[in-house]
């Protein structure tokens, strides 16, 4: 283990440099995990502040203006900076291994996508320190968002634009990777479900994010350059923003949930020791959900006044999505049926997910009934709905993935006992927080209000909800303790700790940076399990041992990102002083310069010679 010994001796800064310049999907996955985890904690703190403000009637813990900033930044942070990057963390860590590839299709782009997300996230949060963060809701409806004073909404626009570009790149990268880099024998209908669902989610990113990009550009021009796309007084139309936002926004919620369906499919099948029930139905349902997901955006706008015919069409289209979702629920149940189930931590999350998500789906169908939605809309009922699907689905899934793939990423098992304690506290805390919010909504509590009057039947419900939120916070603290404890005291876990079925468990732990010495031959669904059933311990190689071609590390993506970051400040502040336009030129100069270097300088990567690989094998 000469590499490990060498890495122990390296200085802190050389490790930092290594991670800044890395193009290795495994390290980029770790960076996504760290950055996404950080923003998850930040968004969680904002959530606690919101709940503390609402713990009793007419509370004055925060001001009305600050409350608006809290809810806006909570939503934006959780969706764009926590949930999605954490999903990318696992996509990076796992997908190339699952399909038998040595890296993603575009390692350079992978690094660029990561840094754009990180600096876009920082940009969004700079607003806190310059007189107020974004405060028009995560949906940023115009005209509220275009007339919101200060720079908060400017940071929202530019920050999302930068991090959104990163997301788009990551989506394209995974599409190409999954189409082009599959090992011999890994046909589409043998792809593990996590890969399949991530593939479809990437396609959703490709088609949905441009709508957001366009919307943000229009808003940027309205706010910074005095155009009037959304200003009816000057011939604009403020409803168009809502359309653009939800054309992106509804597919976005499926971007958040589809890869998680994949995670649970892997977890349920692994810990029931059975192949997934109805694999092809699962794939079909995923594609169908993605397709229908584009045709329903207006269900967020039933009360805008689109007319009865439009409302009816979108209501029916929305309800159809429940059908493929139901197919999936039943397939998971049938996978477990008569399996020899092991209740591990990831499996616990899967078991908690099924009923929780089903409740969220049912309230979704209630909301989709357009006439009834006139009552529910903008009330706590909607808040309850989307937290049931996003926490009960996406966050449960991310926690399951954390426990399931932690050994794959870090060569340590998280403590199972602490993991189960985390689950139970989180699960109870979650339902305590959000179940009552359905009823608060039905009793008339509107969303996004910073106070409510006493003795209107809302006091107790809100107190219960806040208590639940603090339980969830405790659970997260236990998880953090678990991670730190494992990092300090944990033993290396070695290869294949869960007795896995898919290819990522065929790669040694820790993985060599080229992943596969010889690309494996895939002989069926659950390839590793197929080999295990034939009495083999490892995969059959599909090629003779030969030189391996790998990409070089590069700092250019980081430099480009810094360039865009600087230019972003220029765009925001040029309205005060023309001289600040210089920032735009400097920033864009750096970014375009880095692109020029990238285009002109050939970077062909390097080869790991066959001899070296043979030497390693003998050790």
């Amino acid at each position: 283990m000469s590499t490990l010994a060498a890495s122990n001796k390296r200085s802190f800064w050389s490790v930092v440099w290594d991670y800044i310049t890395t193009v290795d999907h495994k390290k980029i996955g770790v960076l996504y995990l760290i950055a996404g985890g950080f923003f998850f904690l930040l968004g969680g703190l904002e959530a606690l502040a919101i709940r503390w403000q609402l713990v009793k009637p007419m509370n004055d813990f925060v001001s009305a203006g600050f409350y608006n900033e809290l809810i806006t930044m909570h939503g934006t942070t959780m969706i764009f900076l926590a949930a999605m990057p954490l999903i990318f963390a696992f996509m990076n860590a796992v997908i190339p291994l699952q399909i038998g590839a040595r890296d993603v299709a575009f390692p350079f782009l992978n690094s660029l996508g990561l840094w754009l997300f990180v600096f876009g996230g920082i940009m969004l949060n700079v607003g806190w320190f310059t007189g107020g963060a974004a405060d028009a809701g995560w949906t940023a409806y115009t005209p509220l968002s275009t007339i919101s004073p200060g720079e908060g909404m400017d940071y929202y626009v530019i920050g999302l634009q930068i991090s959104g570009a990163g997301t788009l790149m990551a989506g394209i990268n995974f599409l190409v990777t999954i189409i082009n880099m599959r090992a011999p024998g890994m046909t589409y209908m043998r792809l593990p479900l996590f890969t399949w669902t991530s593939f479809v989610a990437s396609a959703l990113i490709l088609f949905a994010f441009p709508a957001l990009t366009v919307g943000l550009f229009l808003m940027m021009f309205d706010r910074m350059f005095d155009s009037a796309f959304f200003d009816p007084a000057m011939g604009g139309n403020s409803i168009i923003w809502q359309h653009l936002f939800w054309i992106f926004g509804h597919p976005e919620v499926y971007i958040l949930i589809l890869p998680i369906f994949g995670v649970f499919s892997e977890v349920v099948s692994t810990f029931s020791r059975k192949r997934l029930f109805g694999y092809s139905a699962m794939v079909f349902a995923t594609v169908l959900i993605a397709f229908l997901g584009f045709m329903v955006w207006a269900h967020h706008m039933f009360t805008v006044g689109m007319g009865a015919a439009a409302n009816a069409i979108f209501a029916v289209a929305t309800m159809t999505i429940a059908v493929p979702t139901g197919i999936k629920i039943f397939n998971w149940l049938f996978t477990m049926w008569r399996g020899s189930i092991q209740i591990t931590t990831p499996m616990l999350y899967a078991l908690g997910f099924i009923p929780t998500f089903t409740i969220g789906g049912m309230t979704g169908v209630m909301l989709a009934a357009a006439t009834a939605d006139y009552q529910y809309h903008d009330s706590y009922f909607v808040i309850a709905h989307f937290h049931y699907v996003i926490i009960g689905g996406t966050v449960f899934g991310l926690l399951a993935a954390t426990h399931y793939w932690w050994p794959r990423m870090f060569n340590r098992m998280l403590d199972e006992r602490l993991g189960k304690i985390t689950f139970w506290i989180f699960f109870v805390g979650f339902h305590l927080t959000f179940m009552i919010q359905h009823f608060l909504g039905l009793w008339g509590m509107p969303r996004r209000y910073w106070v409510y009057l006493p003795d209107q039947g809302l006091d107790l419900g809100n107190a219960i909800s806040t208590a639940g939120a603090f339980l969830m916070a405790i659970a997260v603290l236990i998880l953090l303790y678990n991670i730190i404890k494992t990092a300090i005291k944990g033993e290396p876990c070695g290869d294949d700790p869960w007795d896995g079925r898919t290819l990522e468990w065929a790669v040694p732990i820790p993985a060599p940076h080229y992943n596969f010495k010889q690309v494996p031959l895939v002989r069926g669904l659950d390839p590793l399990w197929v080999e295990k059933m034939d009495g083999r311990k490892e995969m059959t190689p599909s090629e003779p041992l030969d030189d391996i071609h790998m990409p070089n590390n590069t700092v250019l993506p980081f430099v480009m990102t810094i360039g865009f970051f600087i230019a972003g400040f220029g765009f925001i502040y040029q309205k005060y002083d023309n001289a600040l336009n210089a920032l735009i030129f400097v920033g864009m100069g750096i970014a375009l310069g880095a692109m020029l270097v990238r285009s002109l300088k050939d970077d062909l990567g390097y080869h790991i010679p066959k001899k070296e690989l043979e030497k390693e094998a003998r050790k």
Partner: protein
Amino acid sequence: MEERATFNEEFIKEKRRQDMRHQVLTFSMLIIFTLISFGMVMSDLNAMFVRMVIILFAVVQVGFQLYYFMHMNEKGHGMPSLLFYGGCFAGFLTVLGLVVLTWW
């Protein structure tokens, strides 16, 4: 063995030559289309007619671009085509819905 290798080489060479011919042909077509478009704009033809023809040319040019220059006419491009046409379809429906909802 020897013979087969040369045959193979011949085949590849011939195929390259053909590819090249296609590329040059489509490239000149693109230029001709563009010239015609400019010419029509400068002429006194009916404006609506000119617009329609230009849009038609644009679609054909995109097709040439994708199929000849970006090699979608070759084998193994099933998934990209599926994504491409699926995207066009979803995009079409979305834009249609948006336009109808906003201006009707």
